[in-house]
């Protein structure tokens, strides 16, 4: 094919495809981030049943375990999302590191949020937390006294350990900062920005981040203060 034909067909070998392009990767991060965001809301609402007592929470857990289609459907979807989200994050991080080899002697931020500048910190910390969390309450290796099926009891004994509770609280603060930026950023990444709606997305992000941190952090705090036992 001649050079002119290449330009016209657009099938140039050196024009990177969707995934090879940062904008494409960001769109994938936005969509997978959106799914994960939906999950963390549902997950928190489910967890808050801890305040309704052992019967309710354990029954809810049993329902999830029994509904195999839902359980595995959710697990596969979430795992796919995490893999895509994290792969894109690490690949883009590689790009950022190469893009500014020489740092500024003095750098002042002129108008960005702390949360937005620390996405590449809050993200990996969340990844470490997700692994720990699964080993703590799902598979049990990181739990001092894990009893399969006894979810309420596992939560209480798990959070009676102060280091474990602190780890959860820190991780939830990270989730809050990640989503404080992420929830509005995902719209921007797929091309949605409008003077009417973007300010609303930013408010939604702040509110949802606060709700998620508050709701989730309340559980270890309630155990440590003896409110639930």
């Amino acid at each position, binding site marked *: 094919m001649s050079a002119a*034909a290449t330009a016209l*067909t657009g099938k140039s070998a050196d024009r990177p495809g969707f995934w090879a392009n940062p904008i494409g990767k960001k769109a994938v991060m936005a969509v997978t981030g959106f799914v994960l965001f939906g999950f963390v809301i549902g997950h928190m609402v489910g967890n808050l049943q801890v305040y309704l007592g052992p019967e309710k929470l354990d029954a809810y857990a049993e329902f999830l375990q029994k509904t195999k289609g839902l359980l595995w459907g959710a697990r596969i979807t979430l795992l796919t999302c995490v893999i895509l989200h994290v792969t894109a994050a690490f690949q883009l991080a590689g790009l950022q590191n190469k893009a500014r080899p020489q740092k500024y*002697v003095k750098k002042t931020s002129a108008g960005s949020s702390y949360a937005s500048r620390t996405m590449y910190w809050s993200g990996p910390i969340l990844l470490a937390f997700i692994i720990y969390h699964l080993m703590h309450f799902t598979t049990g290796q990181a739990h001092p006294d894990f009893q399969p099926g006894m979810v309420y009891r596992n939560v209480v004994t798990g959070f009676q350990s102060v280091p474990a509770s602190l780890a959860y609280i820190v991780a939830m603060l990270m989730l809050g900062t990640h989503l404080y930026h992420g929830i509005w950023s995902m719209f*921007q990444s797929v091309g949605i920005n409008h003077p009417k709606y973007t300010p609303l997305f930013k408010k939604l992000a702040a509110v949802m981040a606060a709700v998620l941190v508050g709701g989730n952090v309340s559980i270890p705090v309630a155990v440590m203060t003896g409110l639930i036992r």
Partner: protein
Amino acid sequence: MKLTLHIWRQKNASSAGKMVRYETDASEHMSFLEMLDVLNERLIAQGEEPVAFDHDCREGICGSCGFVINGVAHGPLPSTTVCQLHMRHFKDGDELYLEPWRAAAFPVIKDLVVDRSAFDRIIAAGGYISVSTGSAVDANALPVRKKDSDMAMDAAQCIGCGACVAACPNASASLFMSAKISHLGLLPQGQPERMERALNMVAAANEELFGSCTNIGECEAVCPKGIRLEFIARMNRDFLKASWTFRADRVEGD
């Protein structure tokens, strides 16, 4: 007013540079570049090498000037190029750090001067429209919605100074690219190439050493021409649409 300056001095593209301290006097009526002119005259008189910095119009319209002052591209005044920044915005005794744009895609040539030809290559990849030869069409023969012409003009304000790249923690060129893609993509004359423009300019930027956008907004905060993040969303939209739906034109013998 007395000032202490710490300026990045680098002999040429291949040598290592360092920050050098200077004491100088300035009047509050001077522009920032005039303040440096005065310093340079003194350096020349002393037989030293003057500080190299880019400048041309000194009216805030050409995009030649620009360096980082105390960590902010084009200095502390919003929507202002460094040539339009005046010393009255500083105080007697201020200590100022002047550094060139820092980005792998913008290698330093000398002192505060960087090579921004990466921008030229992005423009060349898609910053054009097709115009038929013959006599020019009447300017008002082609209706353009006021909203679109306003937005296109907003995007067309970009002077290609590179401050957005310099300020971005990822050294991403998204704000610049989005201004160029939106400027033509908003107007009827820019429609025939709209999809390929997005694909080609984004691909050209990929060939350079820019980072990727994380929607942080430092670029918007320092841009002397008020280019907004909204344009980046518009570029993302055009790129995503083009990469899913673009159909190549059929070429003879293909």
